[in-house]
């Protein structure tokens, strides 16, 4: 069953700024959708439009078939977790969680029961009488989630909820959020700028760029078949190597001296891409090209090698290679690489669409 539908939803601010031209998205019940993109791409605006905190300029938002454009946030049966948690500082954890239920006129005994259920689930029982300032970042985050969960809403909205936590806690909370969402089966819309977070949490991802949905799909769809160079660069870390080239009869012409053989009907300017993890070390005979090594990042489990394509002129394109395990090649030495055709990504340079 389709739970949330965004139909040609757009946002224009009173000053004429066209933040979001038009986004179409339909979310299935229980689905975890992540909106991801760089800052200023309109992902938070889109989320706030679903929440009712920003007006919808054009298009229509429906939740369970009901048009929501003109409904107040409280009438949409959604719950939101804010980036700064937005806990009421003068209320205890209990009161923070009970506030929404009280406002809806739920009997006291039932409120107490609901809050204690959720507190147990989140491990907050000990903290119910504390004020937010007496909690650690991770605990506050949990209270914010508890406040959302206790109301049993149709849709959860998360606005970069993990960005104020340290890296270790972030990973831990990421896993927790995913597990909770699975358990509760509540439809979720989650905003982040962190592509790792997006990839690990999402059933489906929406990559936003300048207010436009560049691609909507499962994390693996986006990784394997990015629709545009923007998505290709955004998904995956380190990001995909993208090089401007020309498609000719001989193949992909990267520079005067370097053409990678390929037969393809398209002719003209393209963006040629390959992920750092798909480049293979080779010997001189079998190699497609050579890399002049400039920097080596050893991470133990993997090694990232930064360099430039070796050309006669010496002005090669920058390229990153990701090798598993430790490697210690010399800086400025040459590394022979093979780029298997099956891992190539080709995009039309003009339309920015995948070929």
């Amino acid at each position, binding site marked *: 069953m389709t739970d949330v539908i965004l139909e040609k939803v757009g946002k224009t601010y009173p000053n004429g700024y066209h933040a979001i031209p038009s986004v179409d998205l339909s979310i299935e019940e229980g689905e975890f959708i992540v909106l991801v993109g760089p800052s200023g791409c309109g992902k938070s605006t889109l989320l706030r439009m679903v*929440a009712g905190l920003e007006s919808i300029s054009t298009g229509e938002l429906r939740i369970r078939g009901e048009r929501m454009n003109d409904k107040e*946030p*409280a009438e949409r049966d959604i719950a*939101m977790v*804010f980036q700064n948690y937005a806990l009421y*500082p*003068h209320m205890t954890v209990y009161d923070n969680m009970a506030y929404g239920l009280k*406002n809806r006129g739920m009997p006291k005994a039932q409120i107490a029961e609901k809050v204690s259920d959720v507190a147990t689930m989140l491990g907050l029982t000990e903290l119910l009488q504390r004020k937010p*300032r007496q909690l650690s970042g991770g605990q506050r985050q949990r209270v914010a989630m508890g406040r959302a969960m206790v109301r049993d809403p149709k849709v959860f909205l998360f606005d970069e909820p993990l960005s104020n936590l340290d890296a270790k806690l972030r990973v831990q909370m990421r896993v927790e959020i995913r597990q909770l969402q699975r358990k509760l089966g509540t439809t979720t819309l989650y905003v982040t700028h962190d592509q790792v977070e997006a990839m690990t949490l999402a059933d489906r991802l929406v990559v936003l760029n300048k207010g436009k949905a560049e691609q909507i799909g499962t994390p693996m769809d986006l990784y394997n078949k990015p629709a545009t160079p923007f998505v290709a660069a955004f998904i995956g870390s380190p990001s995909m190597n993208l090089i401007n080239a020309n498609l000719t009869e001989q193949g992909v012409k990267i520079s005067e001296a370097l053409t990678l053989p390929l037969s393809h009907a398209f002719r003209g300017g393209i963006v040629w891409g390959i992920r750092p993890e798909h480049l293979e070390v080779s010997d001189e005979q079998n190699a497609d090209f050579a890399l002049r090594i400039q920097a080596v990042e050893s991470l133990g489990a993997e090694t990232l090698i930064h360099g430039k394509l070796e050309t006669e002129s010496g002005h090669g394109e920058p390229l990153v290679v990701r090798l598993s395990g430790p490697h210690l090649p010399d800086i400025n030495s040459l590394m022979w690489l093979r780029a298997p055709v099956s891992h190539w990504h080709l995009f039309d340079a003009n339309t920015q669409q995948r070929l």
Partner: protein
Amino acid sequence: MTVTFPQKVLPWLLLLPQLLVTAIFFLWPAEQALEQAFYQEDAFGLSREFIGLENFADLFTDPLYYQSMLTTLVFSFSVAIVGMSLALLLAVMADRIIRGKLAYQTLLIWPYAVAPALAGVLWWILFDPSMGPIALWLKAAGVNWNHYLDGNQAMILVVIASTWKQISYNFLFFLAGLQAVPRSLIEAAAIDGASPFKRFWTIVFPLLSPTTFFLLVVNLVYAFFETFGVIDATTKGGPGQSTTTLVYKVFDDGFVGLDLGGSAAQSVVLMAIVGLMTVIQFRFIERKVQYS
């Protein structure tokens, strides 16, 4: 942060102007008042006689003094509460409007720049029973306004005149306080199903409590000690004693009644009250509620 000066003379030199002002206009008069409180002096200041605590004894057995104390309390709390309520209302409205915000705020801040005596004269004219426009409207509406005869009306007049100036000050602080309330809290409350009215009373107002408490103390201190000009220009403490606050009584007894010793004793009592208020202010405001 501490700034260390390389030598000892310069800092004292820099402090000197303020120290001189404090010494000449505060410490010396205070010392004079303390001394005079223990003497009885003739009206021309030609001779005086040490009488110990007699001035204080007279003071604390004088029903008029207690009357004046009550007047001061009624006056001060009225000024503080009326001034703060109106200022909060205006600040909430100013916080909401988008167009013309600056003009609105500037206009609201203006009264603060008007000298107390001028403010008093302004209201005195507006409410003058025989020619003041407001008094005439009130008469047309069936209210017999004459603050020269009716003590309650006189009190209302001084409260209005004193409050009017203070609203600007309160407004500024409330506006700043409102702007410091994170937007996301209001949004979270909206999603939690609280009406705008409820949002204000359950979220915004509690978060403003440090500001409210600070303003309460400041307004009380203002109404206690800084409204002499307003009262002198509007009612001169009358009719009878109905608007004679403690500060006005010091002036009235000392410079009109020429009881310098009694007036000095009253000043000493006021000094003690100021001291107490200062302690309260520092105690509570320094420790004001911190929200993270």
